[in-house]
């Protein structure tokens, strides 16, 4: 098991290397001078020069890269010329709301989608199944920001049950915290829920049609034992994968949903930085999220190894 884990960690190195290169290059695919672009047309030549100096843009590319990488590895993501603080500090101060939102959305998605997927698979072809699957197509077709707008229109503008936008930290009380996060989490979690439900259903169907389910039925096992013991453990593997793979889009989706609901999270930080073309902050945020994604998938890989005895062998 230890070897398995170490190997998985080893496999991350090239992926992280590509991630680093891509993030680094973001600064350099800008048409023209990145420093000038960042400061805008009104900036003085002296200011641009100063920023170019500060960002090290005058050095050869590979020196810039290793300088930047060295910084990243020691936790130095650079300093934003607009915020006047380090990128790391800015990210840290915006992390809380994003994490709360993403976790809440993921919980909602899993709790709704997994049972729905199982029920749909067991009642394959019935109205319930068709209804659920219709809903999932709808879920996949409505992007989170749009669903957010519709939810605001319905629950905040129309019914006036919930606040239109804004954010209260957990320190303001759990109920208050949730009151502000409920709609954003629904908006963010629905597409995730749809994906998980479809995956659950299809992997359940694969498993339900398998020979070992037939053996189980021939043993005299009840439908319940078959579904929840034999099928679920097998079917949970692909579901786990889909949770891991879509975690990234969940976090990214959070960025968009935050804008809809004015939540001061990383997403809003990114969007504000896009307006300002603050590439340093964007680099840092993108890097943080990509690394988080890679780590989450590492954990999922290890879980996979624990659940499926065949994985460690091959």
């Amino acid at each position, binding site marked *: 098991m230890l070897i398995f884990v170490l190997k998985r960690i080893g496999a991350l190195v090239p992926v992280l290397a590509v991630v680093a290169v891509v993030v680094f290059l973001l600064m350099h695919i800008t048409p023209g001078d990145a420093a000038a672009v960042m400061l805008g047309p009104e900036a003085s030549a002296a200011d641009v020069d100063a920023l170019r100096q500060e960002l090290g843009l005058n050095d050869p590319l590979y020196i810039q890269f290793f300088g930047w990488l060295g910084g990243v590895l020691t936790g130095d993501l650079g300093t934003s010329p607009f915020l006047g603080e380090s990128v790391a500090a800015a990210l840290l101060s915006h992390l809380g709301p994003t994490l709360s939102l993403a976790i809440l959305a993921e919980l909602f998605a899993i709790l709704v989608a997994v049972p729905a997927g199982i029920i749909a698979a067991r009642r394959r072809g019935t109205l319930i199944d068709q209804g659920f699957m219709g809903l999932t197509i709808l879920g996949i077709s409505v992007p989170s920001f749009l669903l957010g707008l519709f939810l605001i229109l319905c629950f905040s503008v129309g019914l006036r049950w919930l606040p239109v936008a804004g954010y209260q930290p957990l320190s303001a009380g759990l109920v208050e915290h949730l009151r502000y996060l409920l709609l954003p989490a629904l908006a963010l979690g629905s597409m995730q829920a749809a994906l998980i439900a479809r995956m659950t259903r299809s992997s359940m169907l694969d498993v339900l049609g398998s020979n070992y389910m037939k*053996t189980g*039925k*021939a*043993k*005299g096992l009840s439908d319940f034992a078959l579904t929840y013991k034999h099928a679920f453990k097998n079917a949970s593997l692909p579901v786990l994968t889909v949770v891991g793979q879509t975690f990234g889009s969940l976090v990214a989706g959070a960025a968009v949903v935050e804008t809809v609901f004015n939540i001061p999270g990383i997403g809003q930080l990114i969007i504000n930085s896009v307006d300002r073309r603050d590439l340093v902050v964007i680099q840092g945020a993108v890097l943080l999220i990509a690394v988080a994604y890679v780590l989450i998938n590492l954990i999922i890989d290890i879980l996979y190894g624990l659940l499926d005895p065949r994985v460690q*062998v091959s």
Partner: protein
Amino acid sequence: MTNPALLTVTDLKTSFLTERGPVTAVDGVPFTVRRGETLGIVGESGCGKSVTADSIMRLLDEKDASYSGSVELNGRDLLSLPETEMRRARGSELAMIAQDSMSSLNPVFTIGNQVIEAITVHQKMSQKDAYRLAISLLERTGVPEPEHRMTQYPHELSGGLRQRILIAMALSGNPKLLIADEPTTALDVTTQAQILTLIRALQSSSDMASVLITHDLGVVAEMCDRVIVMYLGQVVEEADVDALFDSPQHPYTRGLLASIPEIDGDRSQPLNVIAGRVPTLHDVPTGCRFAERCDFATDKCRDSAPPLEDVTLETVDMLAGDATPRKVRCWNWRHIPMNTSATTAKAIR
């Protein structure tokens, strides 16, 4: 006849809904199995033999499949039992071993977990007792180092061992009827011989009857007391095993026996070929289902379907011993000369 019937299948029909319309994969199959007896069901792929097995156990998804007729086990019709009672019967009164031992065991649970589950689903006992019983079952089925096997996963075992595990699970409820669906098809010859010997030994130590489904007439010769031959969803011949090999009556059975290269056959002779191909279930011929491939077919064969005729009395003089049931589904069986194929050589010996 002293031995009463354990399983009586009458006019079993199993139909599926497919996108090209409904098909009847098993079409009016009758047979009986007596206590302690082994009945073979032979036929080529697509003849409905596996569906017959699944129908007896009612393993098919009843959303797609529908049954009619009756399957009486000890006088109780399994097809009309409520699902909860059927579930109690599965694994205790009748059990099954499947063909592909790799996919028939759940890959994410240990062997121990799966064998113990097969025990405790029908018998109330402590985990400890179940464990002990599981070990003894593995010993009975010739699994070496049973304690170690209990902790292993299916992919860590060989095909032969996995098949023994499946047999152990099937035996856990002391079934009266064992249905073996191509139990050795995926195995090598030497392993096949071991598994067949094991099944035979287990059967002789109890009065368990079995239904053995296979495409391999060699396995039939080794294992069965009586045989039914299936073609395109129907039984075309039923006979005592010796009688079937000595004097096959249906043209299809004869053709089948003559197509097999035998280990002691004449190598200089070309093998028999059954011309044409099996029609699909979507366009079943109106007359005899074998007519278009049969050398002896007449207009009558092509126009009207022959019944499964009881010919026990007419063929009894060919046999040395008691009259055992003999049935043929052919209009012309009386008129087909016997020396049409390689079977003759064997009948003489």
